[in-house]
């Protein structure tokens, strides 16, 4: 009989799930943000600091000024484990919470972004894929509810090439040089290939591809090839354990670290620390600064950590991915603030926040107000430009900290916009979407 | 009324060796229509090997097998089955996960022809076919008096019953030639008597030709029309029971050879076979 009871118990458990989905009561003057995070599983080392940064910033805002325009910001984290179907489950679970439902969603994974684009568009909830997701979604005419600010993988690829050119004293010097790309062989890793191939025709360098099969724990073959072909510069689109392994791999074949540049998802503490001294000199792209000496970050320490709050330990505040979480939060809140300017200081619906994002304009002056001078650069979005012309900067690991080694680089917008349009239109065609006419959208 | 006819199976000069050991050494046997042939001999004489060669489980190095006028070097098990040769095993080889009924029904597989699409739809042709064969299977179940265990997974049955179910499965194939490998091994007296009755009835009612291996001399002499004696892979006698019983060679082969069985621990054997 005991075993029969246990069976019943499981059945009951399954049934109990049914009462989910219906969100619970929320106070009325709140703006709810669903937080898709991954604090466990293979990518946790990168997921944790990001989630902490975002959460700490919201806590700080609520503590300092009691929310945005007097509207308290609430959030609930949901563990995706960087797993697409789990991400969808989280989105569906949280999208109706709060008085106005989810104001926006940060999928925090290229895969989940792809899975959410259509759902969220149908639900009129903005998908904010900050520096990840599908690049062509920058074309707001076809993807009204997807935002790729401040820069896409394609933009970054172009920026890296510009940087390399600069280092060699002029892009024309790239001719007949060899540039390699080490990438994790999944959707995310393949994003920059098209751009780098296009540019290779333009500048006449040879483009070498080195796919690493996920999760990238075994790369010796790749590095033997690299040692053999000796590309002059090496880019990396990696994630999680692949990054540190690759840096070790580069060291093991004596590849010059300062010619090895990672995407901004391959340029944070969890990527370099495990590699130890091998990682010194390794570079990566980024769209914001690391470190604690910026107003916003100081405020977090002041209003959250000094009051024994905070999601992590003081010393981890200011890590690259932590600050990236903060930046993400800043963008989201600024969009909400912008929307409040039009729709009033009240909890807003997703489509209202979408308007806010489309009219988001973070000026240098505004950045100062935010206490983020040097932490980030101005961006301005519009109906047909959901990327906002963000800039890219190169940072280098000195064994202790990430230091900038370049100025802010503006990618070749003309070319990119062209590429976005082309790709977006083919998507629209496949899906039977008729693009908005942004001239008519005010 | 049955009467023994012309040979339906002729094994000619069969030689079979594993590595160094010669299991069968140029043995020739013929099995005549409607007869009950007993193959006897001390342990390791090559009796089971002989059956395995006949229904294609082993492939002899030399010799031929002629089945109903068709001569071939080697049989394939499913060809033998299709051609009407079925058998039981020394250590029961039932499908332990299935019920008695299903085991008997597997005997009908060769005669069921609906393809998987019909099967998937089930209702209609497939069901009609199923029921027709179910009816036949039930006849056999009645015949072997195993109605009570129809729906019991055979794994749970006592050894004696398992042997009976296995016989049922073999019968369900409506074989022309039935090979029985120690059908009475590990049975008590009543079970043996039942089994003897079944064998005789099968031979009688269905006119099935039967070749069986048995150790129990009493049984052998009672039920068989003809006896073949093997010893160390050679045939040392072939003829009516009384004749064979008198043959000095046979007596020599059996002298000092106590009247023993090969399977005290049948279940383990079965288990072993399962693993195989």
């Amino acid at each position: 009989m005991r075993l029969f009871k246990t069976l019943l118990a499981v059945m009951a458990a399954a049934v109990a799930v049914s009462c989910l989905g219906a969100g619970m009561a929320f106070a009325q003057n709140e703006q709810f943000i669903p937080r898709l995070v991954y604090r466990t599983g293979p990518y946790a080392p990168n997921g944790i600091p990001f989630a902490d940064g975002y959460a700490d910033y919201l806590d700080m805002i609520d503590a300092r000024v009691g929310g945005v325009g007097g509207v308290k910001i609430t959030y609930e984290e949901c563990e995706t484990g960087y797993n697409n179907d789990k991400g969808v489950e989280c989105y569906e679970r949280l999208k109706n919470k709060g008085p106005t439902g989810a104001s926006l969603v940060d999928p925090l994974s290229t895969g989940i972004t792809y899975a959410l684009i259509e759902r969220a568009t149908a639900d009129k909830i903005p998908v904010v894929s900050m520096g990840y997701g599908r690049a062509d979604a920058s074309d707001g005419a076809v993807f009204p509810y997807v935002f790729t600010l401040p820069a896409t993988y394609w933009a970054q690829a172009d920026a890296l090439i510009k940087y390399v050119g600069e280092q060699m004293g002029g892009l024309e010097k790239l001719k007949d040089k060899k540039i390699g790309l080490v990438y994790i062989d999944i959707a995310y890793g393949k994003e920059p290939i098209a751009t780098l191939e296009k540019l290779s025709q333009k500048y006449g360098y040879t483009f070498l591809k080195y796919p690493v099969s996920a999760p990238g724990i075994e790369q010796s073959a790749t590095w033997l090839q690299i040692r053999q072909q000796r590309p002059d510069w090496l880019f990396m689109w990696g994630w999680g354990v692949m990054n540190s392994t690759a840096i070790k791999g580069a060291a093991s074949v004596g590849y010059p670290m300062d010619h090895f540049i990672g995407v901004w998802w391959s340029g944070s503490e969890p990527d370099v620390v495990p590699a130890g001294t091998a990682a010194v000199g390794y570079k990566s792209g980024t769209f914001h600064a690391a470190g604690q000496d910026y107003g916003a970050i100081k405020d977090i320490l002041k209003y959250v950590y000094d009051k024994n709050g905070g999601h992590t330990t003081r010393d981890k505040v200011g890590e690259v991915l932590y600050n990236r979480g903060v930046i993400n939060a800043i963008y989201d809140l600024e969009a909400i603030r912008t929307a409040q300017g039009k729709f009033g200081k009240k909890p807003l619906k997703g489509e209202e926040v979408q308007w806010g994002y489309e009219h988001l304009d973070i000026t240098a002056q505004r950045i100062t107000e935010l206490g983020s001078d040097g932490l980030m650069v101005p961006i301005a979005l519009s109906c047909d430009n959901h990327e906002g012309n963000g800039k890219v900067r190169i940072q280098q690991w000195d064994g202790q900290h990430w230091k900038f080694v370049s100025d802010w680089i503006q990618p070749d917008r003309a070319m990119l916009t062209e590429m976005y349009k082309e790709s977006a239109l083919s998507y629209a065609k496949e899906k039977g979407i008729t693009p908005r006419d942004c001239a008519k959208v005010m | 009324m049955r009467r023994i006819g012309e040979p339906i199976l002729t094994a000619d000069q069969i030689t079979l060796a594993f590595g160094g050991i010669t299991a069968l050494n140029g043995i020739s046997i013929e099995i005549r229509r409607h007869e009950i042939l007993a193959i006897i001999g001390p342990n390791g004489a090559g009796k089971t090997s002989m059956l395995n060669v006949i229904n294609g489980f082993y492939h002899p190095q030399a010799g031929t097998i002629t089945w109903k006028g068709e001569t071939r070097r080697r049989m394939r098990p499913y060809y033998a089955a299709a051609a009407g040769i079925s058998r039981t095993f020394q250590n029961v080889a039932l499908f332990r996960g299935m019920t008695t009924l299903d085991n008997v029904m597997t005997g009908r597989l060769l005669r069921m022809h609906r393809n998987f699409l019909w099967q998937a739809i089930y209702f209609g042709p497939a069901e009609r076919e199923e029921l027709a064969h179910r009816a036949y299977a039930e006849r056999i179940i009645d015949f072997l008096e195993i109605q009570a265990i129809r729906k019991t997974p055979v794994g749970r049955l006592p050894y004696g019953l398992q042997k009976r179910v296995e016989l049922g499965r073999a019968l369900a194939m409506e074989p022309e030639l039935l090979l029985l490998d120690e059908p009475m091994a590990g049975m008590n007296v009543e079970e043996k008597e039942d089994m003897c009755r079944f064998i005789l009835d099968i031979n009688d009612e269905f006119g099935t030709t039967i070749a069986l291996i048995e150790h129990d001399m009493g049984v052998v002499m009672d039920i068989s029309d003809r006896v073949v004696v093997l010893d160390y892979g050679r045939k040392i006698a072939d003829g009516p029971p009384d004749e064979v019983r008198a043959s000095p060679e046979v007596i020599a082969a059996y002298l000092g050879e106590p009247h023993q069985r090969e399977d005290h621990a049948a279940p383990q054997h079965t288990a072993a076979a399962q693993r195989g």
Partner: protein
Amino acid sequence: MLYREVGQFKASYAADQAIFPIRQDRWLMLGALAVAYFVIPATGSEYWLLTIMVPFLVYALAALGLNLLTGYAGQVSLGTGGFMAVGAFATYKLTTVFPGLNIVLALVLAGIIAALVGVLFGFPSLRIKGFYLAVATLASQFFLIWMFNKFPWFYNYSASGVISAPPRALFGQIYVTGAEADPRAKYLFVLTVVVLLALAAKGLVRGRIGRAWMAIRDMDVAAEIIGIRPLRTKLLAFALSSFYCGIAGAMWAFIYTSAVEASAFEIDRSFQILFMIIIGGLGSILGSFLGAGFIVLLPIFLDNAPRLAGLELPVNLVTNLQTMIFGALIIFFLIIEPNGLARLWVIGKEKLRLWPFPH
């Protein structure tokens, strides 16, 4: 005596071979179907329909497919994910190359393609057995995923190799794929496909083919000697199993997540589905569903349990605890009933049959 069979006499073999020979079971089944078709669509929220029921059904279908191969024919396979991927990408190519193609037809064709691939990768099963075969099927798993990831033709040269389902309708206007599709339409479509295929599976396993499979599973040597051709039988199992998995994969990509990359069907998926049939019960149609329920619903439940109880725990703590409890429960259930939940169900019924009397 809720569950008495007394007085239910079977007049014919037909009645005896019915799917549910016992009246109570028939009622139970009809009840379940009624709930599935009327109550759930009427009451279920979008969350409940799209992120719990649909994946549950899709998983159940895949588990069903694997159960045909592993539970009935005894060929342990870890290639399920690969075959699901075949179904998904085949459907994608079919629907994009022939936009006019009816979605149902597309699914069937995709299933057939998956079946062919399954046959191809089934050949080693003639020689390789048990865990060796299981690991061998991983070759197909890794190869297929690699292939769909590597050759842009499969995903129409999109930059990232992600395929996203074009909207397709049934009877002209009822959309079942794409984001605009009504959750209920999606759910009912999946439900119908699964129910039909489950019935077909039942038909297969209770007849000639099912017995041939089980014979091979229980003792291939003896099976051969009663006239079963091992290779043919095993390959048929691989084909039909892959057909089911293929359709499951297609529905996963088109109806559940509506955008996938090859890695959505990577090895973990295959393992997950193997877990389902072992926990649910090898060689049991019902088991496939119970197993899918266990593996899909339980984690979601454990995930939400603390919040339902009003506790605000950090997500990583919840997730880790969830994983631990989940693992512990797997072991627990195996210990109380190694033959899976389906067997527990049967035992439960036997208890009910006697209830309230001890014996």
